[in-house]
Protein backbone atom coordinates (compact mmCIF):
# COMPACT_ATOMS: atom_id res chain seq x y z
CA UNK A 1 0.00 0.00 0.00
CA UNK A 2 1.32 3.44 -0.91
CA UNK A 3 2.43 5.92 1.75
CA UNK A 4 0.26 9.01 1.81
CA UNK A 5 1.12 12.30 3.47
CA UNK A 6 -1.71 14.78 3.83
CA UNK A 7 -0.60 18.19 2.62
CA UNK A 8 -3.93 20.04 2.42
CA UNK A 9 -6.66 19.02 4.84
CA UNK A 10 -10.22 20.14 4.17
CA UNK A 11 -9.58 23.59 2.79
CA UNK A 12 -13.04 25.07 2.25
CA UNK A 13 -14.52 27.52 -0.17
CA UNK A 14 -18.15 28.58 0.00
CA UNK A 15 -19.92 30.95 -2.30
CA UNK A 16 -23.47 31.99 -2.86
CA UNK A 17 -24.56 34.06 -5.82
CA UNK A 18 -24.14 34.19 -9.55
CA UNK A 19 -21.77 31.87 -11.38
CA UNK A 20 -21.73 29.57 -14.38
CA UNK A 21 -21.56 25.87 -13.54
CA UNK A 22 -20.28 24.84 -16.95
CA UNK A 23 -17.57 27.50 -17.00
CA UNK A 24 -16.51 26.81 -13.45
CA UNK A 25 -16.13 23.10 -14.18
CA UNK A 26 -14.33 23.85 -17.46
CA UNK A 27 -11.98 26.28 -15.70
CA UNK A 28 -11.05 23.73 -13.04
CA UNK A 29 -10.49 20.95 -15.58
CA UNK A 30 -8.49 23.23 -17.85
CA UNK A 31 -6.30 24.26 -14.92
CA UNK A 32 -5.55 20.64 -14.11
CA UNK A 33 -4.83 19.83 -17.74
CA UNK A 34 -2.39 22.74 -18.05
CA UNK A 35 -0.60 21.71 -14.89
CA UNK A 36 -0.16 18.18 -16.23
CA UNK A 37 -2.60 16.38 -13.96
CA UNK A 38 -4.46 13.32 -15.21
CA UNK A 39 -8.22 13.52 -15.14
CA UNK A 40 -10.25 11.55 -12.66
CA UNK A 41 -13.90 12.08 -11.87
CA UNK A 42 -14.96 9.72 -9.13
CA UNK A 43 -18.52 10.87 -8.79
CA UNK A 44 -20.90 13.11 -10.69
CA UNK A 45 -24.42 13.36 -9.32
CA UNK A 46 -27.18 15.62 -10.57
CA UNK A 47 -30.80 15.88 -9.69
CA UNK A 48 -33.56 18.46 -9.89
CA UNK A 49 -35.11 19.48 -6.59
CA UNK A 50 -38.04 21.87 -5.98
CA UNK A 51 -35.57 24.65 -5.05
CA UNK A 52 -33.26 24.13 -8.05
CA UNK A 53 -30.64 21.72 -9.36
CA UNK A 54 -28.39 19.81 -7.00
CA UNK A 55 -24.97 18.87 -8.36
CA UNK A 56 -22.37 16.88 -6.49
CA UNK A 57 -18.93 16.26 -7.92
CA UNK A 58 -15.86 14.51 -6.63
CA UNK A 59 -12.74 15.11 -8.68
CA UNK A 60 -9.50 13.36 -7.81
CA UNK A 61 -6.88 14.18 -10.42
CA UNK A 62 -3.33 13.00 -9.93
CA UNK A 63 0.11 13.79 -11.31
CA UNK A 64 3.07 11.42 -11.32
CA UNK A 65 6.17 13.35 -10.40
CA UNK A 66 8.57 10.43 -10.52
CA UNK A 67 8.13 6.66 -10.67
CA UNK A 68 8.09 6.80 -6.86
CA UNK A 69 6.01 9.88 -6.01
CA UNK A 70 2.79 11.45 -7.13
CA UNK A 71 0.47 14.31 -6.24
CA UNK A 72 -3.22 13.69 -5.66
CA UNK A 73 -5.72 16.53 -5.31
CA UNK A 74 -9.28 15.82 -4.29
CA UNK A 75 -12.06 18.37 -4.75
CA UNK A 76 -15.54 17.72 -3.45
CA UNK A 77 -18.03 20.18 -4.89
CA UNK A 78 -21.64 20.53 -3.89
CA UNK A 79 -23.83 22.99 -5.76
CA UNK A 80 -27.29 23.56 -4.35
CA UNK A 81 -30.36 25.45 -5.51
CA UNK A 82 -28.84 26.10 -8.90
CA UNK A 83 -31.21 28.04 -11.13
CA UNK A 84 -30.80 29.74 -14.49
CA UNK A 85 -31.06 33.53 -14.41
CA UNK A 86 -30.62 36.21 -17.06
CA UNK A 87 -28.04 38.88 -16.41
CA UNK A 88 -26.82 41.93 -18.25
CA UNK A 89 -23.15 41.97 -19.12
CA UNK A 90 -21.73 44.82 -21.22
CA UNK A 91 -25.18 45.61 -22.49
CA UNK A 92 -25.95 42.01 -23.53
CA UNK A 93 -28.30 39.57 -21.86
CA UNK A 94 -26.63 36.31 -20.92
CA UNK A 95 -27.91 33.30 -19.02
CA UNK A 96 -25.93 32.17 -16.01
CA UNK A 97 -26.64 30.14 -12.90
CA UNK A 98 -27.39 31.22 -9.41
CA UNK A 99 -26.95 29.05 -6.36
CA UNK A 100 -24.69 27.94 -3.54
CA UNK A 101 -21.32 26.31 -4.10
CA UNK A 102 -19.33 24.52 -1.41
CA UNK A 103 -15.93 23.08 -2.16
CA UNK A 104 -13.57 21.08 -0.01
CA UNK A 105 -9.98 20.66 -1.12
CA UNK A 106 -7.71 17.88 0.02
CA UNK A 107 -4.30 17.05 -1.33
CA UNK A 108 -1.80 14.41 -0.49
CA UNK A 109 1.63 13.34 -1.51
CA UNK A 110 1.83 9.66 -2.30
CA UNK A 111 5.04 7.66 -2.41
CA UNK A 112 5.69 4.16 -3.65
CA UNK A 113 2.36 4.16 -5.48
CA UNK A 114 3.40 1.09 -7.48
CA UNK A 115 3.95 -0.84 -4.23
CA UNK A 116 7.39 -2.01 -5.28
CA UNK A 117 8.99 -1.47 -1.88
CA UNK A 118 6.54 -3.45 0.22
CA UNK A 119 6.84 -6.98 -1.02
CA UNK A 120 9.48 -7.89 1.60
CA UNK A 121 10.20 -6.61 5.13
CA UNK A 122 13.78 -5.64 4.07
CA UNK A 123 12.40 -3.50 1.23
CA UNK A 124 9.94 -1.85 3.59
CA UNK A 125 12.76 -1.05 6.04
CA UNK A 126 14.95 0.39 3.29
CA UNK A 127 12.07 2.47 2.00
CA UNK A 128 11.30 3.85 5.46
CA UNK A 129 14.95 4.75 6.09
CA UNK A 130 15.22 6.51 2.75
CA UNK A 131 11.94 8.36 3.24
CA UNK A 132 12.85 9.52 6.74
CA UNK A 133 16.49 10.49 6.29
CA UNK A 134 17.67 10.65 2.71
CA UNK A 135 14.74 11.83 0.60
CA UNK A 136 13.59 14.50 3.06
CA UNK A 137 14.86 17.52 1.05
CA UNK A 138 13.16 16.19 -2.08
CA UNK A 139 9.86 15.29 -0.44
CA UNK A 140 9.66 18.66 1.35
CA UNK A 141 10.21 20.39 -1.96
CA UNK A 142 7.54 18.26 -3.62
CA UNK A 143 5.07 18.94 -0.83
CA UNK A 144 5.71 22.67 -1.14
CA UNK A 145 4.99 22.43 -4.88
CA UNK A 146 1.76 20.58 -4.22
CA UNK A 147 0.66 23.15 -1.66
CA UNK A 148 1.50 25.91 -4.13
CA UNK A 149 -0.59 24.15 -6.80
CA UNK A 150 -3.60 23.85 -4.54
CA UNK A 151 -3.31 27.44 -3.34
CA UNK A 152 -3.09 28.64 -6.92
CA UNK A 153 -6.19 26.65 -7.88
CA UNK A 154 -8.03 27.98 -4.83
CA UNK A 155 -7.09 31.54 -5.76
CA UNK A 156 -8.16 31.02 -9.37
CA UNK A 157 -11.56 29.66 -8.34
CA UNK A 158 -12.05 32.52 -5.86
CA UNK A 159 -11.15 35.03 -8.55
CA UNK A 160 -13.46 33.37 -11.04
CA UNK A 161 -16.41 33.46 -8.63
CA UNK A 162 -15.67 37.05 -7.62
CA UNK A 163 -15.72 38.02 -11.27
CA UNK A 164 -19.35 36.99 -11.49
CA UNK A 165 -20.21 38.74 -8.26
CA UNK A 166 -18.87 42.12 -9.26
CA UNK A 167 -19.32 42.13 -13.03
CA UNK A 168 -22.91 41.00 -13.41
CA UNK A 169 -26.26 42.18 -12.30
CA UNK A 170 -29.29 39.95 -12.53
CA UNK A 171 -32.13 41.38 -14.57
CA UNK A 172 -34.56 38.52 -14.08
CA UNK A 173 -34.97 35.48 -11.87
CA UNK A 174 -34.58 35.23 -8.11
CA UNK A 175 -32.98 38.23 -6.34
CA UNK A 176 -29.30 37.83 -5.39
CA UNK A 177 -28.62 37.31 -1.70
CA UNK A 178 -27.43 40.33 0.27
CA UNK A 179 -24.93 38.58 2.49
CA UNK A 180 -21.28 38.42 1.42
CA UNK A 181 -19.83 35.14 0.20
CA UNK A 182 -17.89 33.19 2.78
CA UNK A 183 -14.34 32.32 1.80
Amino acid at each position, binding site marked *: MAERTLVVDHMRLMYEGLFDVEELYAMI*QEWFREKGYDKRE*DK*NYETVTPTGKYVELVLEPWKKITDYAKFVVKIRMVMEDVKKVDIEREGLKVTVNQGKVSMIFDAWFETDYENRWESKPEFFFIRTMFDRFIFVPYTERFKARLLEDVNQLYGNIKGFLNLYRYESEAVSGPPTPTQFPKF
Partner: protein
Amino acid sequence: MRLEKLPVSRIRYAGIVDFDGLYRMMHQWFLDRSYYLEEQSWKYKIPTPLGKHMEIEWDAWKKVTEYALYRIHVYFYLMDVKEIEVVRDGKKEKRLKLKMNLEISSQVEMEYQNRVTTPLQKVLDDVLYKTLLRRDMDIFWTDHLWYIVFKLHTEIKKFLGMETTADPYRAVW
Protein backbone atom coordinates in the same frame (compact mmCIF):
# COMPACT_ATOMS: atom_id res chain seq x y z
CA MET B 1 -3.35 -13.33 -18.05
CA ARG B 2 -2.37 -10.12 -16.28
CA LEU B 3 -4.80 -7.33 -15.50
CA GLU B 4 -4.25 -3.63 -15.02
CA LYS B 5 -7.47 -2.38 -13.47
CA LEU B 6 -8.31 1.28 -13.76
CA PRO B 7 -10.43 3.22 -11.23
CA VAL B 8 -14.20 3.22 -11.64
CA SER B 9 -15.99 6.37 -12.74
CA ARG B 10 -19.60 6.95 -11.72
CA ILE B 11 -22.50 9.03 -12.94
CA ARG B 12 -25.62 9.35 -10.83
CA TYR B 13 -28.59 11.12 -12.30
CA ALA B 14 -32.16 11.57 -11.10
CA GLY B 15 -34.72 12.96 -13.50
CA ILE B 16 -36.35 12.40 -16.85
CA VAL B 17 -34.27 10.46 -19.34
CA ASP B 18 -34.72 9.23 -22.89
CA PHE B 19 -33.30 5.90 -21.85
CA ASP B 20 -33.84 4.29 -25.27
CA GLY B 21 -31.84 7.08 -26.85
CA LEU B 22 -29.10 6.80 -24.23
CA TYR B 23 -28.92 3.04 -24.71
CA ARG B 24 -28.70 3.41 -28.49
CA MET B 25 -26.12 6.20 -28.26
CA MET B 26 -23.85 4.19 -26.00
CA HIS B 27 -24.27 1.07 -28.09
CA GLN B 28 -23.36 2.98 -31.24
CA TRP B 29 -20.40 4.61 -29.47
CA PHE B 30 -18.85 1.21 -28.85
CA LEU B 31 -19.60 -0.06 -32.35
CA ASP B 32 -18.09 3.06 -33.94
CA ARG B 33 -14.85 2.32 -32.11
CA SER B 34 -14.81 -1.35 -33.17
CA TYR B 35 -15.51 -2.79 -29.74
CA TYR B 36 -17.22 -6.14 -29.37
CA LEU B 37 -20.18 -5.45 -27.12
CA GLU B 38 -21.99 -8.07 -25.08
CA GLU B 39 -24.94 -7.47 -22.85
CA GLN B 40 -24.05 -9.77 -19.99
CA SER B 41 -27.19 -9.34 -17.96
CA TRP B 42 -30.52 -7.59 -17.96
CA LYS B 43 -32.41 -7.78 -14.69
CA TYR B 44 -35.94 -6.55 -14.29
CA LYS B 45 -37.34 -6.63 -10.80
CA ILE B 46 -40.98 -6.78 -9.78
CA PRO B 47 -42.31 -3.21 -9.72
CA THR B 48 -42.86 -1.59 -6.35
CA PRO B 49 -45.22 1.34 -5.68
CA LEU B 50 -42.20 3.63 -6.27
CA GLY B 51 -41.47 2.15 -9.68
CA LYS B 52 -39.45 -0.54 -11.42
CA HIS B 53 -35.86 -1.54 -10.73
CA MET B 54 -33.55 -2.60 -13.51
CA GLU B 55 -29.94 -3.64 -13.70
CA ILE B 56 -28.04 -3.93 -16.96
CA GLU B 57 -24.44 -5.01 -17.43
CA TRP B 58 -22.42 -4.55 -20.57
CA ASP B 59 -18.99 -5.88 -21.41
CA ALA B 60 -17.08 -4.38 -24.32
CA TRP B 61 -13.65 -5.46 -25.44
CA LYS B 62 -11.21 -4.71 -28.19
CA LYS B 63 -7.88 -6.28 -29.12
CA VAL B 64 -5.10 -3.74 -29.23
CA THR B 65 -2.23 -6.07 -30.04
CA GLU B 66 -1.67 -9.82 -29.80
CA TYR B 67 -0.62 -9.20 -26.21
CA ALA B 68 -2.99 -6.48 -24.93
CA LEU B 69 -6.74 -6.10 -24.86
CA TYR B 70 -9.00 -3.28 -23.62
CA ARG B 71 -12.09 -4.21 -21.66
CA ILE B 72 -14.77 -1.75 -20.58
CA HIS B 73 -17.53 -2.80 -18.25
CA VAL B 74 -20.67 -0.69 -17.92
CA TYR B 75 -23.17 -1.22 -15.13
CA PHE B 76 -26.55 0.51 -15.14
CA TYR B 77 -28.62 0.51 -11.99
CA LEU B 78 -32.01 2.09 -12.53
CA MET B 79 -34.33 2.71 -9.60
CA ASP B 80 -37.89 3.99 -9.26
CA VAL B 81 -38.42 3.82 -13.00
CA LYS B 82 -41.74 5.17 -14.24
CA GLU B 83 -42.86 5.72 -17.80
CA ILE B 84 -44.13 9.20 -18.48
CA GLU B 85 -45.17 11.22 -21.51
CA VAL B 86 -43.62 14.56 -22.26
CA VAL B 87 -44.49 17.10 -24.91
CA ARG B 88 -41.49 18.23 -26.91
CA ASP B 89 -41.80 20.57 -29.90
CA GLY B 90 -45.54 19.90 -29.95
CA LYS B 91 -45.04 16.11 -30.08
CA LYS B 92 -45.77 13.60 -27.36
CA GLU B 93 -42.78 11.45 -26.51
CA LYS B 94 -42.27 8.63 -24.04
CA ARG B 95 -39.60 9.09 -21.42
CA LEU B 96 -38.53 7.44 -18.20
CA LYS B 97 -38.46 9.20 -14.86
CA LEU B 98 -35.80 7.43 -12.86
CA LYS B 99 -32.79 7.47 -10.61
CA MET B 100 -29.79 6.08 -12.42
CA ASN B 101 -26.42 4.97 -11.16
CA LEU B 102 -24.00 4.27 -13.97
CA GLU B 103 -20.56 2.79 -13.30
CA ILE B 104 -17.88 2.47 -15.93
CA SER B 105 -14.91 0.31 -15.06
CA SER B 106 -12.10 -0.67 -17.37
CA GLN B 107 -8.98 -2.76 -17.48
CA VAL B 108 -6.11 -3.62 -19.76
CA GLU B 109 -5.61 -7.36 -20.10
CA MET B 110 -2.20 -8.58 -21.05
CA GLU B 111 -1.41 -12.02 -22.35
CA TYR B 112 -5.15 -12.46 -22.75
CA GLN B 113 -4.79 -15.45 -25.08
CA ASN B 114 -3.23 -17.53 -22.28
CA ARG B 115 -0.58 -18.91 -24.56
CA VAL B 116 2.07 -19.04 -21.83
CA THR B 117 2.20 -22.59 -20.48
CA THR B 118 5.78 -23.79 -19.97
CA PRO B 119 8.09 -22.47 -17.22
CA LEU B 120 10.47 -20.96 -19.79
CA GLN B 121 7.57 -19.11 -21.43
CA LYS B 122 6.52 -17.84 -17.99
CA VAL B 123 10.00 -16.46 -17.35
CA LEU B 124 10.05 -14.74 -20.74
CA ASP B 125 6.55 -13.38 -20.13
CA ASP B 126 7.71 -11.98 -16.78
CA VAL B 127 10.62 -10.21 -18.48
CA LEU B 128 8.25 -8.88 -21.14
CA TYR B 129 5.70 -7.62 -18.63
CA LYS B 130 8.02 -6.21 -15.98
CA THR B 131 10.64 -4.58 -18.18
CA LEU B 132 10.22 -4.49 -21.95
CA LEU B 133 6.51 -3.63 -22.12
CA ARG B 134 6.29 -1.75 -18.82
CA ARG B 135 6.61 1.63 -20.47
CA ASP B 136 4.06 0.75 -23.15
CA MET B 137 1.67 -0.38 -20.49
CA ASP B 138 2.08 2.63 -18.20
CA ILE B 139 2.30 5.38 -20.76
CA PHE B 140 0.36 4.02 -23.66
CA TRP B 141 -2.22 1.34 -22.96
CA THR B 142 -3.57 2.28 -19.51
CA ASP B 143 -3.48 5.99 -20.25
CA HIS B 144 -5.16 5.50 -23.64
CA LEU B 145 -7.96 3.37 -22.21
CA TRP B 146 -8.43 5.79 -19.32
CA TYR B 147 -9.11 8.70 -21.65
CA ILE B 148 -11.27 6.59 -23.98
CA VAL B 149 -13.49 5.85 -20.97
CA PHE B 150 -13.67 9.57 -20.19
CA LYS B 151 -14.80 10.33 -23.72
CA LEU B 152 -17.69 7.94 -23.17
CA HIS B 153 -18.29 9.53 -19.76
CA THR B 154 -18.54 12.99 -21.37
CA GLU B 155 -20.88 11.77 -24.12
CA ILE B 156 -23.21 10.30 -21.50
CA LYS B 157 -23.22 13.55 -19.51
CA LYS B 158 -23.98 15.55 -22.67
CA PHE B 159 -26.85 13.23 -23.55
CA LEU B 160 -28.33 13.54 -20.07
CA GLY B 161 -28.05 17.32 -20.27
CA MET B 162 -25.85 17.56 -17.21
CA GLU B 163 -24.10 20.79 -16.31
CA THR B 164 -20.55 19.44 -16.17
CA THR B 165 -19.87 18.46 -19.76
CA ALA B 166 -16.78 20.53 -20.49
CA ASP B 167 -13.84 18.37 -21.49
CA PRO B 168 -10.47 20.08 -21.91
CA TYR B 169 -8.91 16.62 -22.09
CA ARG B 170 -10.72 15.73 -25.33
CA ALA B 171 -7.57 16.32 -27.38
CA VAL B 172 -5.62 13.86 -25.22
CA TRP B 173 -5.59 10.67 -27.27
